[in-house]
């Protein structure tokens, strides 16, 4: 376990050691979230590294990562807690067999922590030896609005109220990261409790640093060219621009193909790694890809001079 960072630079260093290249605004909001003990709400296009932030944070701080993947229909019994009905039933039958007649006592026994099945949100409130865990609530926009209401109590007070048992409060609040792809707007009541950050596509310098760290097998020239190509691609009129995850995939794909520099034919053939919509691929393939590669290489040459 590592102590929490004490400054923004410290935060940058911390995530940097875990191979995450953050920009300063992100490091700032991260530092504030840790310092103020507030949940952090990250929004951005798919594949810009929102989920990665939580993973890196858990790794760098030596905390446990508890992940709640959201989906439509997610409810309390899957996200917070559930009673173990089979065991409860058995307990009642056993009590009957033993001639137990005191109902209050029975109820108290049956609704105890022993029979409680903890789901991610409740797990995150439990004390851990390594310090409070990192709770990642991933792709919150996939649930329906009704679920957001369950989160309000947890996010503001770090506690869960179970009607049969009482309120369970975390001794030390977990580090909470929420992510959303913005396929719908999240309610203000929830956003209000969090610090907000829009995770954007990285600029060329940062993206080069990311590729150098995450896909070091790609040569220097290849890295420079492929990053410039992806950056140019994002400026095109595409239905879905490639994210950082795609850049990294492409870097390893190109190194697998033993490329040392971009060549238009290979770019055309491997576009499927970067672009995931047929319209986009059809638009960029062939002459357009060649044009873009030429332009990128000319730019780099001009810059080097």
């Amino acid at each position, binding site marked *: 376990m590592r102590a929490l960072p004490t400054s923004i630079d410290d935060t940058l260093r911390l995530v940097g050691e875990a191979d995450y290249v953050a920009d300063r605004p992100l490091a700032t909001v991260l530092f504030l979230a840790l310092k103020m003990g507030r949940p952090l709400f990250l929004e951005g296009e798919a594949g810009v590294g929102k989920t990665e932030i939580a993973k890196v944070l858990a790794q760098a701080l030596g905390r446990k990562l508890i992940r709640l993947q959201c989906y439509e229909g997610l409810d309390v019994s899957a996200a917070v807690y559930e009673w173990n009905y089979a065991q409860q039933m058995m307990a009642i039958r056993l009590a009957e067999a033993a001639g137990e007649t005191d109902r209050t006592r029975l109820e108290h026994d049956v609704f105890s922590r022993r029979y409680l099945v903890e789901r991610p949100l409740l797990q995150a409130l439990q004390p851990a030896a390594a310090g409070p865990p990192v709770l990642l609530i991933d792709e919150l926009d996939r649930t329906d609005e*009704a679920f957001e209401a369950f989160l309000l109590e947890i996010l503001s007070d770090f506690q869960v109220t179970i009607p049969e048992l009482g309120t369970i409060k975390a001794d030390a609040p977990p580090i909470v990261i929420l992510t959303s792809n913005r*396929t*719908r707007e999240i309610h203000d009541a929830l956003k209000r409790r969090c610090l907000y950050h829009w995770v954007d596509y990285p600029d060329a310098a940062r993206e080069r640093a990311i590729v150098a760290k995450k896909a070091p097998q790609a040569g220097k020239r290849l890295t420079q060219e492929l990053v410039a190509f992806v950056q140019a691609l994002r400026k095109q009129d595409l239905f879905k621009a490639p994210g950082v995850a795609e850049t990294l995939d492409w870097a390893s794909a190109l190194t697998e193909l033993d490329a040392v520099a971009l060549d238009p034919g290979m770019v055309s053939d491997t576009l499927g790694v970067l672009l995931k919509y047929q319209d986009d691929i059809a638009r960029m393939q062939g002459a357009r890809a060649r044009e873009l590669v030429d332009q990128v290489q000319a730019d780099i040459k001009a810059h080097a001079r």
Partner: protein
Amino acid sequence: MSGQPQGEGRLAENILYFARALREAGLPVGPGAVLDALAAVETAGIGGREDFRAVLHAVFVKKREQLIIFDQAFDIFWKRRGFMEKLIALMSPVAPNAPQSNPKAGSTRVQDALLKRPPPKEKPREELTLDTRFTVSEQEVLQRKDFAQMSAEEMARAFAAIARLRLPQDAVLTRRLNADRHGKLIDPRATFRHSMRAGGAVIDLAFRSRASRVSPLVVLCDISGSMSDYTRVFLHFLHVLTDRRKHVHTFLFGTRLTNVTRALRTRDIDEALAQCSAGVADWAGGTRIGATLHEFNRVWSRRVLGQGAMVILFTDGLEREGVDQLGREMERLHKSCRRLVWVNPLLRYDAFQAKASGLRAMLPHVDEFRPIHNLASMADLVAGLSADHATARAHDPKKWLKAAA
């Protein structure tokens, strides 16, 4: 008020008239409010104009959205001088070249209420309508009459009819479960709690069923010149829809795309329409359906088409350029939503055929193709919102394609 000097008597009378004007303009002002107003004015005394306005405002205005009507009415009614000039100006025809200030929201209603202008008489346009009048009720005539042929008074009645439309809550089932006495799935937790109440001897089953939710409705509305006869009515309809149904997103397009969801949430219809037109630069101009759909797909589709959204596309489909792009963008739109309904006022013509190239490019990618030129077709559309396959089949776009092939 017999014991009071003459001047005071006039004030009471004026307040009474003012209250009546407000009532005509749609504010719920009863006789009690008039008495309150008189008492309030007496208590506060008649100070400056602004004080007087505040006093009357305190009595007559009960909701935020009434403020705009009140202000308009106050300004027109309590003009110290120039009321007659204003009246004359309102009554006389405006010279076509005179610089005309934009009418303020709500002002038409207030002026109508204050001046009680008789609605301009319309010549009966078709002999046919007169004939049908003998056979069907007036209400039914209104139901079938084309919006474009309505007189001002008929239009007002149509707006009232739109406001009365009953909207079905077209819910879709979610995967979430709710407690339901008549459900089919056993709710173990509630069952257990109930059983404990009886000491665990009897197992009292509790049930639940799948919850339902209103899915988002996205409306793309063409405001180009060729649609202008229908746009205003349709916007009225959208205003009602936004007011009564959750999750309605509205976009206007002509040559560019504008999101007017927020503007339509304004409670007062005139103010909402004024906000819409303030935000739109290309009102009643040309249309670029393909290009604007492209913009929608790229910028908005991922944000508003989640969660099983339904799309209503209101356009005549008369696109002259870029038919290829139009087809592509329609396909993308169709693939991103649960259901795509195209409403087209051109379907009012009995002899309508899907011949235009833009129409033919769009038709293969819609689930339903519906008319929207009178109240009856609008009510049909509303009924069709709650997905029913029988009605959907009646509006199958394929039959139009086949007929024109």
